[in-house]
């Protein structure tokens, strides 16, 4: 195999991983992007009025990825960094579950928005696996 064939193989293998599932009026898009706890990232595409919405379906906040989104300062700095970088919006539903999402009126912008939201979810789920130092641990005196 020459390098171009290998690249074609990579491209085909990668694009073969995309899947979809119809979920009511939304389409679940299962992306080829995986978290460090080995979960493929899903996003949900729907049309609301004239806008297209791409959301995480509330999965980050409700624990579907089997990680708890932390409240430590270190973690929140990372969360806000990614949220600001990708301009991710958030809203809570009636049950208090936070949804992270992006919206656009132009269908041509959807791939870019989907990519940003996917990377956001991938990063936040992966970072949520890190055990940050807690207050008690920080307050302990160093052993001499």
């Amino acid at each position, binding site marked *: 195999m020459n390098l171009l064939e290998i690249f074609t*193989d990579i491209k085909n293998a990668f694009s*073969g*991983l995309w899947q979809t599932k119809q*979920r009511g009026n939304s389409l679940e898009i299962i992306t080829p992007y995986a978290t460090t706890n*080995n979960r*493929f990232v899903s996003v949900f595409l729907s049309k609301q009025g004239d806008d297209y*919405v791409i*959301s995480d*379906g509330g999965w980050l906040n409700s624990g579907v990825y089997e990680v708890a989104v932390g409240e430590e300062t270190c973690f929140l700095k990372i969360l806000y960094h990614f949220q600001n970088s990708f301009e991710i919006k958030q809203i809570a539903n009636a049950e208090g579950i936070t949804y992270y999402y992006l919206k656009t009126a132009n269908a041509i912008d959807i791939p870019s928005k989907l990519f940003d939201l996917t990377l956001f979810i991938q990063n936040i789920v992966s970072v949520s696996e890190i055990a940050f130092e807690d207050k008690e641990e920080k307050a302990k005196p160093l052993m001499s």
Partner: protein
Amino acid sequence: MKLAENWWDEMRNPITGFKVGSHKSNTRLKDDDFPEIKIMSDTLGFKMTKEDPNQNITFL
């Protein structure tokens, strides 16, 4: 990485004819060497997989 879906193991590259992921670097590895990657909606119950997560929310 080893994927969770069986169909993936049978996929063939239309150009090379090789099974996808069957290149030499994989042949000396055991299945246990690869983590399985889960599709989370496959792990949800019937009701959950029928629900539209974006319904009943007005995205501002």
